[in-house]
């Protein structure tokens, strides 16, 4: 029903917003395994020379693994769903869903990657939750938009 855990702006949203008017690269979703959230690991041309392929692939693969964990339908998620149904979904007032926990992990990971890998190279990752889980936005902070 309502997203009780987002009573104000999302945690760290303002500091995670990339500056305007710089070149942005968008990593699109990979639908080869259905509608699960998974991003393409194809290295974009615009980042050639700015970022090593291995670092890029490591980030994307790690993100994909977090999302796979979130969308994984295991016994425990089924039990959680059944319990929620039986309590008329009132337990969500107290408890976070499994998916929300995984999204928090993703946010933390993105922030940490920005600090250690991307910002030293003048790039910035945007959390895909900020973009509706459609794309991963990588901003090149020192390039103008049409370069």
């Amino acid at each position: 029903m309502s997203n009780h855990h987002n009573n104000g702006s999302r945690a760290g949203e303002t500091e995670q917003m990339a500056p305007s008017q710089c070149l942005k690269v968008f990593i699109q979703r990979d639908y080869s395994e259905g509608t699960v959230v998974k991003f393409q690991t194809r290295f974009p041309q615009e980042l050639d020379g700015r970022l090593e392929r291995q670092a890029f692939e490591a980030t994307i693969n790690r993100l994909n693994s977090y999302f796979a964990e979130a969308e994984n339908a295991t016994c425990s998620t089924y039990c959680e769903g059944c319990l929620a149904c039986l309590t008329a979904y009132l337990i969500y007032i107290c408890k976070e869903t499994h998916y929300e926990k995984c999204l928090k992990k993703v946010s933390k990971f993105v922030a940490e990657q920005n600090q250690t890998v991307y910002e030293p190279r003048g790039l910035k990752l945007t959390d895909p939750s900020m973009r509706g889980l459609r794309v991963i936005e990588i901003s090149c902070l020192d390039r103008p938009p049409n370069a």
Partner: protein
Amino acid sequence: MTLDSEYQLVDLTAIHSEGTDSMSEMARDRVTKKWEVFAGRNRFYCDGRLMTAPNGGVFLLTVFLITGTCTLFFIYDCSYLAEKVTVAIPIIGGLLFIFTMSSLLRTSLSDPGIIPRATPEEAAYVEKQIEVTNSANSPTYRPPPRTKEVLVKGQTIKLKYCFTCKIFRPPRASHCSLCDNCVDRFDHHCPWVGNCVGRRNYRFFYMFIVSLAFLAVFIFACAIAHLILITKTNDGQFLEAVKESPPSVIVATICFFSVWSILGLAGFHTYLTTSNQTTNEDIKGSFASKRGQENMNPYSQGNVCLNCFYILCGPVTPSLLDRRGIVTDDYRAEISRPVNAEINQPIKSYGVAVQNGPTQVTMNSTDMPGIYRQTTETTGMYSPLKKHLYRAQHIIPSKNCASQKIIPSQAPLLPPYDYNTPTRKPAINPPLEVFKNSRSLPQLKTLSGRPTSPEPANYPTLRPYTPPEKRYSANFGARAPPPAKQRPRSCVYENVHVQDEFCMNRVRSDKVMSLTPKVKNFPTPEFSQMYIQESFE
């Protein structure tokens, strides 16, 4: 700011009024939440916590019917049956009622899985990629509607481009024209529930119809039992029983009529759940076996039980819309940022003063001299607009443009149509040679038989019109490019859709064409008076 300083020099004594001014300023600076600037047509309540579709009338009817019937049931039937049969009847009825109402409210007031619209940079990036793939075609050949093919577990699925949300929709997503949003795993828009049914609220919807089916059957059975028991005590006089307890008859009638449709719906959705399909896919027959070629559903888990479990108890994303977040200046800048677009340069001999390099185009500006090709969307599918009249009189920046190409026209130029001249005749007595030869407006050929009044001398003989090979039609792209004619030195921008109220009214009254009712749901293109034209020769 010099004005302020002048004011201060003059008004130094009014210190208390300054104080109240600042207080009212603070009151005016109230915090804007993101739901207030939401782009779709949903309605929000409780400061963004609850959201529904724009028209809530039928939903209120549903609530009224359910609560009204149950109230009558509890007052009249339960009191009798609780003493005569068992106390469990009102308890079970009460539990069913609570469960039904809570599922209904959950379905109606939650986010169905809306996909947020693309930011301007994202949209521009996608546009650039599409332009790259279409660059092989000549500038006058309009590319077909945008689709992208992906392989999902070995099957080819087409992803469509949503012109409103500026994204390639994920598989199983669809755009709801009533709510004006793309919804993930779109099932259908249910007016009874007053919301779209999508990925996030499908399980609540299913629970609602199943529990409502049980409730309806239960109440029907109890009401009939009540009437039969009274009949027995009155020695077989059914009419006496009816006179004794008329609300039971009302309850039984309502339940009787609703049980059939609700049971049918519950059964249908059970089938959909077990095969992991949406109503949308079932209606389109996406995964039905056609002519011996079996289309497997790539999203199915393989097993009936697994499918059920996955849909009803599986993991679900939280709402992707941050409704209650605070709108900061950064956020505002992000959603309404000017988009840097490069206008493709046509062949230079047209003599149009096209700016070199990228131009800044703002989404909200109305005085931008840029010319856009504007498209409208029909329930998520890009459909050729066969039935609109093309009278491109005033051409302006459109807010919903897919790209900003300038397409030079081959039509000779005309002076702009002046609505303000009172002596001007109504629009539709045009020389109908235009329509007679039209291949995409066949219905208007009958108009050519009408007597037309003699035209005034200064009436233009030809209007800017789109030659048949350039119009949208079902054979899109199948026509050969037009033969090379000598092009005029000026440009009229074509493929612009005009909803001219006057001519639409005239057309409606003539009943020559029947406009699809969905036309009313389109965002109306907003037109200003800007029109670029070089010469009239």
